[in-house]
């Protein structure tokens, strides 16, 4: 049995965990649910030895675990899969797994043997493995998570803790993944699943522990609870989900028109294959797809960060670049410069940069005023414009990105996985903002690219599917997640 006794952990003035008791039994899947910042990940880090708690102890089968030592936790049989994959970007996947338990321990590095063992385990789990010798930096997020899961399982752990592993999986991959967790449970292991997807927790967990602001607020089972009930426990009050009107009244004239957009990478591999679609004023168009099917490249083309091999991106209203705002999927890598100030991050947007620059001179006080105004308007929790972006929480970083997109008064907003890693309240808020943008008096056009089908079904009028660099429009009436999931996975029809 895995027990955490009265774990307390403080970061500066923030109390991340407040005397948390937690128990998980062998042969059970234990879901740990809570909002962003509830302390789920901190608890995992304490259990996995990445963090030392201020008070309290973790005990596995009666033996106290050495605090703050991942090595000791691994030796005791606790393996963790982290939310942002902890992989070595420039190394091959085989080399990455060499740090796991596939190693023979003889001291000699036998990558072939490691790869063979990884493949056989992967095959058992139904994982598609990357090509031989592929470096991690070019792999999709889903592939990275699979590699992390493989690495964790290679230790043959008694306890497996997974931090939001499903947020990057396509619907078609979800069922096999949950089956995998059930298999691990069947083998008598302890599986701790950290998630904020409540349906998932109810579907797969035996018991559920709910954290809110560093405290355990409920211990329950799927039979005793419901999604609504859990959501209420997590947030502390039931927020009435606004009725989202997914179907626009009628959309206006096309604003963004993509014609035969094609991109080949430097090896000549086709990444995007003659994409054609349009987005009109007053509509939200979704592009659903499993990560790594060309979405990132499409967003880069739309942002003007790279040039297409052929084809056109046309803004039918105004000049290109000036009226489109792009919110890239990776806040911390593409969207923000974490060690720059908030106002500096704001003027990364070309339109805003031009606004506060005259004759080449930067008017910083102008930018700071604008930033202060946006902090208020978008309720970004930050001490002020001079704060660095890295000091903000994930949800507030996303608010900053959304605020920046809106501030440049675009006709089109392109957003890629904008709600990934955000909790319910933050997600609802971002969706609300997008809906207001599209259906409000400004009648904006929104292109929402996401691997989260539920999100797209909730707020998109039209839905496109991208798979292996090709795009297809779905039947407007087609709203069945399972069928759409099959299309995302590449099924012909």
């Amino acid at each position, binding site marked *: 049995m895995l027990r955490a006794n009265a774990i307390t952990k403080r*970061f*500066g003035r*923030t109390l*991340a965990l407040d005397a948390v008791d937690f128990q998980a039994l062998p042969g059970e899947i234990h879901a740990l649910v809570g909002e962003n910042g509830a302390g789920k990940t*901190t608890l995992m*880090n304490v259990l996995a030895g*990445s*963090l030392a708690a201020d008070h309290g102890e973790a005990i596995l089968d009666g033996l106290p675990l050495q605090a703050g030592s991942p090595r000791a936790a691994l030796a005791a049989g606790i393996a963790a899969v*982290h939310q*942002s994959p902890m*992989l*070595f*970007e*420039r190394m091959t996947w085989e080399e990455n797994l060499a740090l796991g338990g596939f190693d023979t321990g003889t001291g000699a590095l036998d990558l072939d043997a490691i790869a063979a063992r990884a493949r056989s385990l992967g095959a058992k789990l139904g994982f598609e493995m990357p090509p031989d010798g592929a470096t991690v*930096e070019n792999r999709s997020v889903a592939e990275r998570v699979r590699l992390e899961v493989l690495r964790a399982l290679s230790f043959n752990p008694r306890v497996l803790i997974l931090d939001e592993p499903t947020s990057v999986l396509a619907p078609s991959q979800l069922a096999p993944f949950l089956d995998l967790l059930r298999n691990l449970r069947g083998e008598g292991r302890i599986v701790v699943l950290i998630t904020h997807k409540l349906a998932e927790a109810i579907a797969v967990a035996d018991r559920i522990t709910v954290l809110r602001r560093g405290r355990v607020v409920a211990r329950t089972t799927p039979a005793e609870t419901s999604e609504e009930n859990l959501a209420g426990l997590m947030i502390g009050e039931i927020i009435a989900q606004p009725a989202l009107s997914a179907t626009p009244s009628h959309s206006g004239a096309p604003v963004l028109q993509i014609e035969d957009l094609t991109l080949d990478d430097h090896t000549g591999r086709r990444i995007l294959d003659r994409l054609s679609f349009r987005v009109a004023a007053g509509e939200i168009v979704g592009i659903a797809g499993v990560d790594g099917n060309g979405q990132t490249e499409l967003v*880069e083309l739309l*942002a*003007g*960060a790279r040039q297409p091999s052929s084809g056109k991106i046309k803004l039918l209203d105004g000049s290109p*670049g000036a009226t489109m705002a*792009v919110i*890239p999927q*990776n806040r*911390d*890598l*593409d*969207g*923000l*410069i*974490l*060690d*720059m100030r908030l106002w*500096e991050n704001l*003027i*990364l*947007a*070309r339109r805003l*940069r*031009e606004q506060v*620059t005259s004759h*080449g*001179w*930067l008017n*910083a006080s102008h930018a700071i005023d604008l930033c202060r105004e946006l902090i208020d308007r978008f309720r970004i929790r930050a001490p002020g414009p001079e704060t660095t972006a*890295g*000091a*903000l*929480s*994930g949800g507030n970083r996303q608010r900053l990105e959304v605020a920046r997109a809106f501030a440049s008064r675009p006709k089109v907003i392109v957003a890629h996985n904008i709600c990934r*890693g955000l909790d319910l309240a933050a997600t609802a808020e971002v969706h609300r903002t997008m809906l207001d943008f599209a259906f409000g008096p400004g009648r904006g056009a929104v292109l929402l690219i996401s691997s989260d089908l539920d999100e797209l079904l909730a707020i998109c009028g039209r839905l496109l599917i991208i798979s292996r660099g090709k795009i297809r429009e779905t039947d407007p009436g087609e709203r069945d997640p399972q069928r759409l999931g099959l299309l995302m996975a590449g099924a012909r029809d």
Partner: protein
Amino acid sequence: MLSSIAKPFAALALAAALISIVLAALGASPLGVFAALGEGAFGSWYACVDTVVKSTPLVFTGLAVALAFSGALWNIGADGQLTIGAIAAGAIGPHLGNFPHPIAIAGILAAGCLGGAVWGGLAGWLRARRDVNEVISTIMLNFVAVQALSWVVHGPLMEPSRAYPTSSPIARAAQLEFYFAPSRINLGMLLAVVLAAVCYLLLFRTGAGFELRAMGRNRRAATFFGVRIPALTFWVMTLSGALAGLGGAVQVSAISHRLYEKLSPGWGFEAIAVALVARLNPLGIIPAAILFGALDNGSQAMQRTQGVSPELVQVIQGLVILIILAFDTPAWSAVREQIFGATGEAAAVPPVAEMPDA
């Protein structure tokens, strides 16, 4: 802000303490040695001026390095760029005798700028268009520049008598004159200070400077928001080279008046330390350069009166830089995270995904 100024001095004090231990172990009197060092660097009007003379090339090259480093362009080639600038100045200098003084000065300095700009721009072009790592290209171009200088003073630019491996002296009109002679105060020093201010404004008060800093902090995000990385890379390296080349031209015009081998004692390399001590802030370059210039200048007095080898000054310099870097908060915390993993406050914010620097 205050702490960023105070830190280098605290580091200097710690270095001095360490050096005292070394000196005491060597049997020398630490106080006597430091007194001689101070005396040699700032003990008289002439010592002060000489310190500034020694600092001037470090300001130019330090600014060159700081500008490039701000954009995460690792220009290790300020020495080569300064050398090519000096060659250009030394080549045109003897032929400016018929021009009025201001025009001749403008001509010789422009030649230096141009020479350095070509050398820096070449590395910038290689990076922007051919993806050649600028660390490699600038180091290689340093070698070429050193040999080019050696060749011109033995060949095409050798003085007419062919007795010495130096070039002909530059025309009087092209010489930056000394004020209050025999002190060596000259307008090159003023130019260095003005350029430091200009670089500061460029970096922190213009849109282009912002784009440069954004590129330096996060190249991917900068790309995403429409910063034209290749063009910026080329122009920054060109400008960086021009600054270093101008430093070479000022040296020729004001001090050496001719070319000879080993004109630069390694200013371009010392500049990296100067720029880092100044934490890439152009205004910080001036005190940082004077610090290094004073150590250079004072070392001679130290050797004369205390019998301590001037090499010890290099030991002091090395220790100062190491200690500053070790106590520099951002750098230190980054290093600490690399080795020990995120701890304490750092873990409260979500971990930043590993960032490829290309």
